């Protein structure tokens, strides 16, 4: 397929300002938030209507050109990395909220709508969209859907998948289909469930029906500081054991605390080795009763400092620190890798000790931020890319952490997906037979493998 005929065909769909082909225009699209992977696509098209996306996919199918859908490019696993011989279909301007129905508590949106915009639009009705990745001020619903993104409040409210009701999709061969309905219930195999988390390999979502839920009446957000990370971890087990179901349970280690403080002055105690953030949410009476129970546990847990958010502004400040932790680590190190793995909650302590051991062995600093309630680790591996071999060592360390997660009975990704980064780790978690079934599904839906080619499965 020569470039000029592709270009000619695309220019029939897109005006020049939305068809990018020269190198300077393409550079911003060469990678996502995992910047160690880069590839220059043949072209980037900026779609503003569903029909443009459909026409483009049909064209790609006809010409055998691979395409990659792109929301805001915040993927941390190389999910929106372009194919060097392909097209990037940018969706961040396909961003209309088509319908918001407060009675039936749903929103029908286009995929380029930013996560937080959904909650913002729902706020006047006392509703919100529960999945809250830290990147929510920028990441799109399309990206959330592709990765089944999570956030701090997954334990109680689930991931993106638990909040998607229906989809309109253009399959890689250009067929447009609908899946699901506006009801919470369905009959037949859960096809919406299968599509969510398919990492762009099953085609492009054009319209997404999201479930909205009432914003909790009350929150109680508690910060507890510990002299050891292990103590913070033990407290999680105790909270869970007493039958509480907090909205969020997060832990940060000292390095992450330092970084967050430097970046946003969240008021975290700088000398803590482990900082626990626990948030209760729900009906006021319930939260009050649970708060007493929680504080009993916390006071007996050996925390040397405890702070309860005074008001909404204070609560937001606490969360801002936690949610900016990834980018804040950039202040401590020129380069870093954000890792994402899961271990059974009861083995968090062991996993952290093991990560510390690996950190020492590799002589690389590792900052830890994690969704402790879910056993979802986010080790941030700090390195200096200017030193030769540093990136390779950091990647090796990241790989060892993934092996550790699988050894402990967990997963190689809790929410950031496989993408490009972890495709060679999928066989660590799944057998040949397991992979064959997934690949058979992939082939049945995209026989030519033009949608997000090269992702998820081992090279």
């Amino acid at each position, binding site marked *: 397929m020569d470039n000029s005929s592709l270009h000619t065909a695309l220019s029939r769909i897109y005006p020049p300002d939305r068809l990018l082909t020269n190198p300077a225009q393409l550079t911003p699209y060469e990678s996502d938030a995992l910047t160690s992977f880069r590839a220059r696509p043949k072209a980037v098209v900026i779609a503003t209507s569903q029909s443009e996306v459909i026409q483009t996919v049909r064209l790609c199918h006809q010409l055998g050109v691979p395409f990659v859908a792109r929301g805001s490019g915040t993927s941390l696993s190389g999910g929106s990395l372009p194919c060097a011989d392909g097209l990037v279909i940018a969706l961040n301007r396909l961003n209309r909220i088509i319908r918001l129905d*407060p009675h*039936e*508590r749903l929103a029908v949106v286009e995929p380029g709508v930013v996560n937080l915009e959904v909650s913002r639009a729902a706020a006047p009705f*006392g*509703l919100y969209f529960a999945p809250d990745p830290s990147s929510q001020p920028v990441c799109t619903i399309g990206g959330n859907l592709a990765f*089944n993104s999570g956030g701090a409040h*997954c334990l*109680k409210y*689930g991931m993106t*998948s*638990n909040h998607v009701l229906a989809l309109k999709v253009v399959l890689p061969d250009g067929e447009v*289909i*609908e*899946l*699901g309905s*506006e*009801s*919470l*219930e*369905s*009959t*037949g*195999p*859960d*096809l919406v*469930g*299968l599509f969510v*988390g398919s990492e762009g390999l099953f085609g492009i979502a054009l319209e997404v029906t999201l479930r909205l839920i*009432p914003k909790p*009446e009350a929150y109680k957000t508690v910060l507890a500081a510990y002299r050891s990370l292990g103590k913070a971890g033990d407290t999680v087990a105790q909270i869970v*054991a007493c*039958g509480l*179901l907090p909205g969020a349970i997060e832990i940060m280690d000292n390095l992450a605390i330092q970084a967050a403080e430097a970046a946003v002055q969240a008021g975290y105690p700088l000398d803590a080795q482990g900082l626990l953030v626990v948030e209760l949410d729900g*009906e006021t*009476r319930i939260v009050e*009763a649970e708060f007493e129970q929680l504080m009993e546990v916390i006071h007996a847990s050996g925390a040397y400092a405890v702070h309860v958010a005074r008001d909404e502004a204070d609560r937001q400040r606490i969360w801002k620190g936690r949610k900016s932790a990834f980018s804040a680590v950039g202040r401590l190190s020129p380069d870093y890798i954000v890792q994402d793995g*899961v271990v*059974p*909650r*009861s083995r968090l302590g062991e996993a952290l000790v093991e990560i510390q051991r690996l950190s020492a062995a590799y002589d690389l600093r590792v900052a830890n931020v994690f969704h402790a309630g*879910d*056993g*979802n680790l986010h080790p941030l591996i700090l390195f200096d890319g200017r030193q030769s071999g540093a990136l390779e060592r950091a990647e090796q360390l990241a790989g060892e952490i993934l092996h550790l997660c699988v050894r402990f*009975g*967990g*997963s*190689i*990704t*809790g929410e950031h997906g496989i993408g490009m980064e*972890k495709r060679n780790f*999928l066989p660590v*978690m799944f057998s040949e037979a*397991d992979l064959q*079934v*997934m690949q*058979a*599904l992939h*082939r049945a*839906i995209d026989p030519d493998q033009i949608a997000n080619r090269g992702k*998820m499965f081992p090279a």
Partner: protein
Amino acid sequence: MPLENVTVTRYNEIQEVIRSSSRLAPRGAGSKTALQTTLSSVTTLNVSDLRGVLAYQPQEFTFTALAGTPLAEIERLLAENGQYLPFDPPLVGRGATLGGTVAAGLSGPGRYRYGGIRDFILGLRFIDGHGKVVRAGGKVVKNAAGFDLPKLMVGSLGRLGVMLELTFKVFPLPPSYGTLRSEFQALSAALDAMLHLGRLPLDIAALELIPHANGAALYIRLAGDQQILPSRLNRLRAILGLKDDEILAGQTEHDFWQEQKEFTWIEAAHTLVKVPVTPRRVVALDKQLAAHGAARRYSAGANLAWVAWPGDSSTLDHMLEEQGLSALAVLGANGQVRLGRQVGAAFEARVKQALDPAGKWLAL
């Protein structure tokens, strides 16, 4: 009658049966009578001997059990440890198994609060149409590796493979429950009250509507600390401005919800049909159902109609098709299983082709 009934306990025996049969249908306890096959050309693969909990650590909020394990056994074990399956699996009293409930894709009243069975399944092991044992998903509460096959199996009716082991997420069991029942003179008024409640920041465990000749009854279930339940129930009353209401507590309360989960309100000769709906469509649907003499109850905040269909299912099939609704027959004589409009049928066909190219698993 099926030609051959095989009860198998070992995976390799199951694989053998799959390899040597051309048409298969898995069967658990047989509690969902409408989903049984009577075709003589089909081998029924009875997996009710595949039972037992394989792993359960309460602090992990997860368990793994064999697919044929009766839910009663699982619920008992969880309750002993202060936990439960928040989606209130139905038909437990009739012997429903874990695998059968996944295959049928059924959730009870509790699905209103935290989600349905699809939201709690984490992983599984199954045998596909090639006879291969396949694992998918994970055993931890969070996992995003690979395609979400566990969710795909929800509602798959055994046509994508036979499930062997399943891993689920569980939650802490509420210490107590209380229910407010309120009578409305019209179904639409009860629906309005329900929609109003649904938008308020209240922790409502279940919300169900039962229409009757003189209107409808709305049941609002609260869960949590016993001490604060009375004040929470009173608050509900005040919000709704209720006069004509009643509070159900203790055994009476338990029995009511038990009846909802077990469908004891359905006449044996009728077919129990699950119809996903949205609150807005309930009034029109209800009128038609009433005209056909069908008893019905609305569950999960009117996201689900449970219909006791008295006659031939083809009439219902046409009626639902016209309204753009889909449905599943659950209890009753074997007839048409999937009714009304099938969304995503072409996509489903591709999935079926991938997992079962020879078409060994009977399409219900």
